[in-house]
């Protein structure tokens, strides 16, 4: 490990810990108003969506891709349907990944990619 890597990792570890720990301690000591506590119920769906939607629709990190050639888009639609019908996480992961590979294989066969 180089010295630069060491400094980088210490810096990253420090800031990551700083966004997790002090707020946890602070909020355990100071009571929050009911409005804020109620609003927090929306954090998990909001953050998860804001992580996955760009990953699905901007797969190359540059341009919006709404074509059927976007295998992430097709596979995540299938995954969402499986999750909705089954509520089974493992099944969702398995069928989602299987759809991705199948779709890419079909695209390759059809010569689209």
């Amino acid at each position, binding site marked *: *490990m*180089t010295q630069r*890597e*060491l400094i*980088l*990792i210490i*810096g*990253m*570890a420090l*800031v*990551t*810990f700083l*966004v*997790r*720990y002090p*707020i*946890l*301690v602070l*909020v*355990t000591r100071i009571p929050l108003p009911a409005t*804020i*506590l*109620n*609003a*927090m*119920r*929306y*954090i*998990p*769906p*909001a*953050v*998860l*969506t*804001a*992580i*996955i*939607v*760009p*990953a699905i*629709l901007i797969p190359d990190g540059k341009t*919006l891709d709404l074509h059927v050639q976007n*295998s*992430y888009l097709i*596979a*995540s639609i299938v*995954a*969402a349907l*499986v*999750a909705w019908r089954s*509520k089974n*996480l*493992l099944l*969702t*992961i398995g069928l*989602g*990944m299987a759809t*991705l*590979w199948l779709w*890419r294989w079909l695209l390759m066969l059809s010569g689209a990619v």
Partner: protein
Amino acid sequence: MTEVITETIIENSDGRAVTRLSEFWAGFRATIPLIIGAIPFGMIFGALAMTQGISPAGASAMSAFVFAGSAQFIAAGLVASGASTAIIVLTTFIVNLRHSLYSASLAPHMKTLPHRWLLPLAFWLTDETYVVVINRYNAPDASPYKQWFFLGSALPMYLNWQLCTYIGIRAGQAIHNPGRWGLDFAMVVTFTGMLVPMLRNRAIVICVAIAGITSILFYGLPNKLGLILAALLAVTAGVAVEWWQRTDKTHDKGFSAHDPT
């Protein structure tokens, strides 16, 4: 006072006694699918780090001491692009800001815990563990050992991440371009599987729609700031819809409505 608490037998919804160990195992069981979803993610990080000019020891240390998946990926990409250490640390901070939202949301449930609990649990907080644990904390039963559920979720998640990074590092020295296999998509399907069952009412659906649209609109903002902005707007939208629904009901029926959820 404490003696009274320890002598009281607390039962879970199945009517079985809740112990520290039973909470730990329940946390582990609830996290198993998420651990499986994280396996390819961790392996790809290890493999990717090797192709981006990070040393094997550096990649292992990053997983052990930073322990934040998406920030580690972005850091690896930035190292390869020649970004300065200060920029990478700043980016890590911004990408991980969402953890402060998680901490704020968990904290009201963890008021009685001493620092020897808060410190490690804060360090082990991840997207996956947060979703599983907040669900446990929101469950109506009065188990005094919910922190053991947190530990049962977080610790296996951490150990798995270390192991997968190691396997990825070894594989990365053999396989080139690991992204080609689409394994980075494992995180997307895992998060999709976590998200969909949350869509229980109109306010949450609108919250998610706003998060999706704004995350695309703000995607171009530097340092993934768009993620935080989109999340904040979406939470605001969810609260606004809930507030509208409540005032509508009050007007229609002439009495104050119950919680719409």
